[in-house]
């Protein structure tokens, strides 16, 4: 079982996955000839190369087991990703300030050591900084709070 969970084996699978995905999404692209290459020539070539390298990497990993893969820690990964996604949704819809608050709150929670006073201070400093730099400095066309200004 551990052989199937080694870093190299999984990396090999990932490359195979990307190769297969590329191949299936490129199937409608005409390949053309070596002299007059179609838009699909290079994508196909790269996809096949990725498949080959992926299989070789995975095969080698089965014979010579590498370090075992360490499962992800979901909290930092999830928090950072969700923080960015929330920001993306709030930035235009609700304005810079709500987006900023959401991002800093979620990201700080993901980093552990959550101290309400510190996080509030951080939000205050960053809000002032962002308004000065992006709104007034670079003249970015975004409202601080949507509907207000």
């Amino acid at each position, binding site marked *: 079982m551990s052989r199937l969970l080694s*870093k*190299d084996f*999984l*990396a090999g699978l*990932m*490359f195979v996955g*990307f190769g297969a995905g*590329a191949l299936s*999404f*490129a199937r409608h*692209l005409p390949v053309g000839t*070596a*002299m*007059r*290459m*179609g*838009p*699909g*020539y*290079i*994508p196909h070539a*790269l996809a096949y*190369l*990725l498949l080959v*390298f992926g299989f070789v*990497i995975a095969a*080698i990993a089965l014979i010579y087991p*590498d370090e075992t*893969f*360490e499962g*992800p*820690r979901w909290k*930092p*990964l999830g*928090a*950072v*990703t969700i*923080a*960015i*996604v929330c*920001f*993306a949704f709030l*930035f*235009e819809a609700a304005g*810079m300030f709500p*987006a*900023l608050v959401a*991002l*800093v709150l979620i*990201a*700080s929670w993901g*980093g*552990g*050591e959550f101290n309400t006073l510190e996080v509030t201070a*951080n939000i205050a400093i*960053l809000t002032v900084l962002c308004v000065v730099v992006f709104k007034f400095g*670079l003249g*970015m*066309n*975004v409202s601080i709070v949507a509907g207000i200004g």
Partner: protein
Amino acid sequence: MDVIHNLSLGISVALSVQNLLYALAGCIIGTLIGVLPGIGPVATIAMLLPITFHLPPTAALIMLAGIYYGAQYGGSTTSILVNLPGEASSVVTCIDGYQMARRGRAGAALSISAVGSFFAGTIGTIVIVLFATPLTQMAQKFGPADYCSLMVLGLMASIVLASGSVLKAIAMVLLGLLFGLVGTDVNTGAQRFTFEIAELSDGIDFAPIAMGLFGITEIILNFERRLQRSGAVKVGSLWPTMDEVKRAWPAVLRGTGLGSILGVLPGGGPTLGAFSAYMLEKKISRDPSAFGKGAVEGVAGPESANNAAAQTSFIPMLTLGIPSNAVMALMVGAMIIQGIQPGPEVMTKNAELFWGMVASMWIGNCMLVIINLPLIGIWVKLLTVPYRFLAPAILLFCCIGAYSLQSSSFHIMQVAAFGVLGYIFARLGCEGAPFLLGLVLGPQLEEYFRRAMLLSRGDPLVFIQRPISLSLLLAAAALLILIILPSLRQARNEAFQEEET
């Protein structure tokens, strides 16, 4: 006389108030980044790419270059004071620099490293001035096939520099090339891998990928590790003793020479320069046992070498348009964002940009000595800023930066997606740098490859019939053989192990 004419042009560009300000801003930001925990020069440059979008091209590149070598200087400061390298190229400085600091010679170590770096930076800039013109003239003789082979050589070099499995590094290059294809095919107008998303038809923007892969991934990994910093030691007097000066200056000279050469090589760069210089100093020293216990040479040599290499690694990027490491790949990305096609034409078509940038490198190095030595107290204070304050701020600037590229939230989502992808890469032991190089070179490589094959009527032999192309391919093959050879592989692994500790 051309050189003098070019230099005077460059100096006049670099000395304009605007460019001086951007050089200063770059140097300060770079030093700040070098000193602050948990964020390297690649992530910083990626983060600031969108901001440079709004600047004129020369100012943008001057600022980015300033960040790059500013981070070199800043990285040495943390290596010496707290035994934590700000980035890979100052790893070796930790070994003897921190020991010097513990014996109360921190100030001397800092000033030797700053002055050594300045000297090396000056020589590195002179090397660029001398070699840029002949190299560019040579590059103008290149046909499409030669360009292809040159890019293959550049990509191969990025594989040599990646740590871990060679096969995985090659696969990462391929994956990067594949991501570079996303968008509308220039020759036929066909949509490739766009999934009917309108934003993807111009290709994936380079900046969100770089931010995600390097900036966001770094934050997630640092959160996992619960990054902590210990308190800094006292700096003490900045003046080195006569004995220290006597031992340091030959090491500075050797480091500068070695670094300048290694920086030009494809795949070379500051990290390689610093490691080689340290090994050289240890080998020729009359008292090798002093190394690791605070030998001045162990600070002076690598510090000069990494700075010299940082300067000369601009040569392949500026003259041939081929980046030799991840930072240079970002520079190429910045040029493309500005609408400048990197390559030999830059020097003739954008002479002001080219020479202005070269001249500003030297000016930037002057600024850095001033920023780093008298103002060292400020940077020491910054060392104590906890990461839990910094991380949300870095995230925030990434997001706003990505948005400002095209005023679209889609770019922020891309940052998130590539952050996750970068995290997967890191967990699977796949390096981001070869991916980034593949991504940057992908579209050009395809273009030249198709053109070369069209000219040769579909005959792939063209790549070995042209002497320039053949010799470049042979060099690439030689590199590949070198890394597969067991003895060298071992040395490479050792070097990377040292880097990781």
